[in-house]
């Protein structure tokens, strides 16, 4: 009797949640694929014609947006890593009894809605706002200087919003490191820099990889930052902006669906390349 229950119980536990994921994730992905192969207009209706040529079409038309999205997301990931690593390191190695408190302080701002935070940055960084307005009044900046709607401003916004996704996994990886290994390195006459790069950093690589993926993936698909801090400037649009507009404004469903799948492909390709290269580096080092 016990073996029968063993056979049935996991199924009963898995079916409701698994079914939900199939119904509202797997099935929708299949429908998005079908819709990408349809042709027509919103008014006359879309019909499935297995129009695979939509894929080369959207890629030739929008390759620049994919390139820009990937570029912004890679730069954002690099900056969050460079800025987040010292912070995670300080909290993990020097935090003492304040570790948990410091970690909670890092995430506290992110309990306020993403949209509200981004909107407030737009106000802070506006042309005559509290930062640049002041610098202009002091004569330190050109009167017609502007930061919003530039590529740097979008990268700035992405960096701010995804910093905790980098800091938390880095902290987890650094916190786990056995301090005796670092001591052993210095005992063996490694300089502090050598001990850091050849022991601490290598051991924290899982956190670097996790943090990079957690930053890169949401960043590459983001459209709020380019819409708000990028002030809707088409010159700084990312591919998410076009997908969102085509789905919700121009109702061009097939192109929007095809653009989404190309984005999925791009993310998968870049993530594979990245994890492979880090993996081989670790084997070599």
């Amino acid at each position, binding site marked *: 009797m016990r073996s029968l229950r063993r056979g049935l119980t996991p199924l009963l536990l898995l079916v409701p949640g698994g079914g939900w994921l199939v119904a509202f994730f797997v099935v929708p992905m299949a429908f998005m694929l079908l819709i990408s192969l349809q042709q027509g207009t919103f008014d006359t209706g879309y019909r499935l014609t297995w129009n695979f040529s939509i894929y080369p079409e959207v890629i030739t038309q929008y390759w620049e947006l994919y390139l820009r999205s990937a570029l912004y997301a890679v730069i954002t990931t690099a900056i969050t890593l460079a800025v987040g690593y010292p912070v995670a390191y300080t909290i993990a190695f020097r935090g003492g009894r304040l570790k948990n408190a410091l970690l909670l302080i890092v995430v506290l701002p992110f309990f306020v809605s993403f949209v509200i935070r981004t909107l407030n940055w737009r106000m802070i960084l506006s042309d005559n706002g509290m930062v640049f307005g002041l610098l202009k009044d002091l004569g330190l900046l050109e009167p017609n200087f502007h930061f919003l709607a530039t590529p740097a401003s979008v990268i700035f916004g992405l960096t701010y919003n995804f910093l905790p996704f980098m800091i938390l996994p880095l902290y987890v990886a650094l916190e786990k490191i056995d301090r005796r290994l670092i001591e052993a390195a210095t005992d063996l006459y490694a300089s502090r820099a050598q001990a850091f790069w050849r022991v601490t950093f290598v051991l924290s690589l899982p956190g670097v990889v996790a943090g990079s993926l957690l930053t890169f993936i949401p960043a590459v698909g983001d459209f709020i930052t380019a819409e708000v801090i990028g002030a809707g400037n088409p010159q700084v649009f990312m591919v998410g902006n076009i997908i969102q507009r085509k789905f919700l404004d121009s109702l061009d*469903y097939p192109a929007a669906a095809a653009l989404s799948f190309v984005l999925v492909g791009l993310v998968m390709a870049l993530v594979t390349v990245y994890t492979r290269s880090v993996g081989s580096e670790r084997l070599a080092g």
Partner: protein
Amino acid sequence: MTAPATASRGPALRARLGSLALPLFTGLLLLFLFAPIGVMIGFSFNDPAGRQNITWQGFTLRNYVDVWGRSEITNAMTTSLGVATISTIVATTLGTMIGLALTRYEFRGRWIMNLLIFIPMTAPEIILGAALLTLWISFGVERGFMTILAAHVMFNISFVVVTVRARLAGMNRSLEEAGMDLYANGRTTFWKVTFPLIFPGILSAALLAFALSIDDYVITVFSAGRVETFPLWVYGASRLGIPPEVNVLGTLIFLVAFAFIGVQLWAQRRQGRSAGPAPVTLVGR
């Protein structure tokens, strides 16, 4: 300072400066993280001349009274709280069941389940939202409260599974075995031993789900139709400037999170040094 003195004192001074550099950098970064929060709180007390609310005009508490009188805000808040509450309950239940099945039972096809949980968590949000939209379009489902709910349960399940599974994996199985040895049947053992032990994990999973749900814009916008959740209302109302009501509600949300985290830290301190690892699971992504 003479040259020999610099030579001998230089390294020590540099080491001291070096040891200060990291905490200083961390402190500055924390300030940076709180910058838009500070501005939000400040401008929630602003008395704007027009609807723009870009420059400081004068102190008022009126915004905190007015906010409750505007039906579109209270409606959006009610919708958000409703979606967050229901989706948290459903996703926590379904996710906990999957977590139990994955840690307590052997079954074939485990990798499919793992993939089904992993992919929605790592895909860019815009993809999840867009795919759901194609499902609603294909079946002619009218978008509203129920479609938002289906979407939120979907993206929350994975986070619940990961959080609960971490707790289950770290659990001491001998306690359950002791229960069985003392003639408790499977059900009694589960409710009297297993469930109380994993409850903290379930609770932090539920809190994470609630936080993700109440803040979501990207996935929601594709499933919302004409219904507005709080982030959707904020975005729509802030095209030109941020109305003070947005900052008022943002400030209130921040205070709730602040109080919550304060209580958590206080509870940890009371528990003393047995306080286990940092509550990273609570903030997750």
